[in-house]
């Protein structure tokens, strides 16, 4: 919380993240000045996906995103050994390192954008939709956490994988686009897009009132399965860890 005590810094972060989001809103607005719909996705539906993707970024920063920073550096320097000595779940210790307070403003900004989009879309049955949205948002977060856990497990074997941060941010940024609007592409590209579509497009669809059981069950199953697998992979990789600094 020390960052919040420096008013200048905190205001800078508000400006930086707000302009950043505003740029993406302008992008979508520009896109929709050229077309009315993208494969059935209207402007406000796309903005809702952007809001959801941004909300995921904000919530991730407040929870497990710090996992991607400095983890391989810790292994490289041998500082990870200290964590092993502590009587706490090692995955929990590695993933929930600190709260990224600089990104605090991302969450309210995203919620404002979601509210704005929902008001434009006028969905029916908003209460059950919102509950479904929260459940699926949680499942998306779990899926993203699992991807990060799988990637970071490689650090035990390959030590220096600090570029993972850039790769992971690319995935997170992709969630801001309505992946389900992308059609007529090759099967390989389509299969690669499916997990990305689940991250933000499926919760957004539920909030709009479009309940598609296949996608909903698919997302929940994928999130739970990937979490179990990623945890197993992390613990298995840990067994093969020998202090890198030694």
């Amino acid at each position, binding site marked *: 919380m*020390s*960052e919040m005590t420096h008013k200048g*810094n905190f205001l*800078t*972060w508000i400006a*930086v*993240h707000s*302009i*950043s*989001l505003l*740029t*993406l809103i*302008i*992008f979508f607005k*520009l*896109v929709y*000045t*050229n*077309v009315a719909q*993208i*494969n059935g996705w209207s402007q406000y539906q796309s903005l809702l996906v952007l809001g959801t993707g941004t909300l995921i970024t904000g919530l991730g920063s407040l929870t497990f995103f710090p996992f991607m920073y*400095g983890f391989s*550096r810790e292994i490289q320097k041998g500082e990870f050994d200290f964590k092993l000595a502590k009587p706490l779940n090692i995955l929990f210790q590695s993933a929930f390192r600190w709260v*990224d307070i*600089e*990104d605090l403003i991302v969450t309210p900004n995203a919620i404002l954008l979601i509210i704005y989009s929902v008001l434009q879309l006028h969905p029916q049955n908003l209460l059950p939709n919102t509950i479904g949205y929260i459940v699926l948002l949680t499942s998306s977060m779990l899926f993203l956490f699992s991807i990060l856990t799988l990637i970071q497990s*490689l650090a035990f074997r*390959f*030590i*220096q*994988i*600090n*570029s*993972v*941060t*850039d*790769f*992971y*941010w*690319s*995935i997170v*940024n*992709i969630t801001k*686009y309505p*992946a389900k*609007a*992308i*059609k*007529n*592409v090759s099967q390989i*590209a389509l299969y690669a*897009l499916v997990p*990305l579509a689940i991250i933000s497009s499926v919760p957004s669809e539920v909030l709009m009132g479009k309940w598609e059981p296949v996608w909903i069950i698919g997302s929940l199953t994928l999130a739970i399965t990937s979490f179990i697998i990623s945890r197993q992979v992390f613990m298995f990789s840990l067994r093969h860890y020998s202090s890198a600094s030694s």
Partner: protein
Amino acid sequence: MKKYWQFFKMGFQQFLEYRLNFVWSTAGAIISTLILYLFWTAILGSNPSRTISGFSLGNYYLLISIIGALTFSNFRPIADDIWEGDLAIDLLRPYNYILKHFLFELPYKITRLVLGIVLILLIGRFTGFKISVSNAILLSISVALAVGVKFYLAFLIAGLAFWFKRVHGFNALIFNFGGLFSGELIPLIFLPPTLDAFSHYLPFRYLAYFPVQLALGQVAIRQSILGFAILVLWLALVVVLNKLVWAKGLSQFDASGR
């Protein structure tokens, strides 16, 4: 000079030792462009060979993706050095810290360049896409200048770590704001006249869109000379800005690590 050659060799050894790092960083640089290409394909009606103002969307995003990967500079190791206090060790040693980082990044850029050329040749063989020799020379010069601008921009962002705990937000701002005006998020012909005019006053247009236009032979001689002059000016400006920020930052740097 010999010590810098050693740095280059060390960078290359590190690159070979930590090969997976290269895969992640390259994949990270390409994946965003790929999704944008697919997104634009969806917007424009699913035909990758569809042309916009004389060039195909596929070729456009191929070049944008290669240029993006080539000019990508990582600010994180520098910001980490500042934040953790490790920078003090480098400052005490008789070498140029900026040059050292550039030489460590060079093997990544060389490998991406080779991969980019192979990719263009391969795609050209199947689609007939070609870049003339004169356009390739112009493209190379513009990319070299863009590499310089983006490298110093990354250093500038990293330099903010003297004051801020984390600087990734600034990078996100450059990524989004710069993406809008560089032609990565949106081919610039889709920008309304006001924003298009505004983009001429920013560096981003000249870091991706201008090199692509040069490669596709869509810039008149007078415009290309002007474009190169603007790129040189931006390079000079970021170098000066960088010097100012780092001088100010170093004056209060206590190397305690936080």
